[in-house]
């Protein structure tokens, strides 16, 4: 015959184990709901810089907003995220809104990327203010303004 106190201890022990198991299960369920499977980040432009030169990583080495008429003007567009086909466009305009140049690169980034655009004018840039607008798949994604002066 089992003494009564021992049976009580055994019963409460089982209860504690059951509650513990339930809590662990509950916590596991909660955790799995809070942490969905990792997904590839959507493509987005993180930075647009203009300058007179770029490095091997396609980034502008020294961002600048002041240029000389004979400079080649570089723009580096930093982005993150993955996409099978992004039409990245650079539209350069003069101060009166006149189109200077427009170019598009179709890229398929799988993570952080840098895309560079550059323009030059053999007979020199007219002095004035210029604007660069960058778009991704037709949607505005950033830009920069700069000046050309003698």
């Amino acid at each position, binding site marked *: 015959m089992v003494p009564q106190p021992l049976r009580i201890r055994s019963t409460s022990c089982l209860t504690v184990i059951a509650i513990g198991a339930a809590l662990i299960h509950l916590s596991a369920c909660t955790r799995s709901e809070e942490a969905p499977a990792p997904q590839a980040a959507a493509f987005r432009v993180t930075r647009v810089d203009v300058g007179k030169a770029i490095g091997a990583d396609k980034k502008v080495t020294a961002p600048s907003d002041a240029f000389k008429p004979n400079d080649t003007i570089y723009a580096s567009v930093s982005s993150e995220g993955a996409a099978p*086909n992004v039409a990245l466009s650079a539209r350069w305009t003069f101060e009166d809104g006149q189109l200077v140049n427009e*170019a598009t690169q*179709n890229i398929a980034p799988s993570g952080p990327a840098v*895309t560079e655009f550059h323009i030059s004018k053999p007979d020199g840039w007219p002095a004035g203010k210029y604007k660069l607008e960058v778009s991704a798949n037709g949607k505005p994604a950033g830009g920069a303004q700069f000046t050309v002066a003698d």
Partner: protein
Amino acid sequence: MADEKPKPNFGNVQSGGSSTAPAAPASPTATSPSATPAPPRTYTVVAGDSLSKIAKKMYGDANKWQAIFEANRDTVKNPDLIHPGQVLKIPDA
């Protein structure tokens, strides 16, 4: 009468570009219908290019060079004369 500054000529601007990301397939892939139309495709001429080479690259068919020529009549007067850095509009195939 105000003195109107003559508009600068940007017709000889040369452009180019490159990316650390791989190039997407030249022909646009089927995508879900979208309200915003895709921007027009362009191609920047590099040394050694001809319209038929570009047509082959963009459409997989060199004989479609005339479509590119027609789309760029405003800047390309002679189909045998295109310049590195020149940006060409690439019409849909």
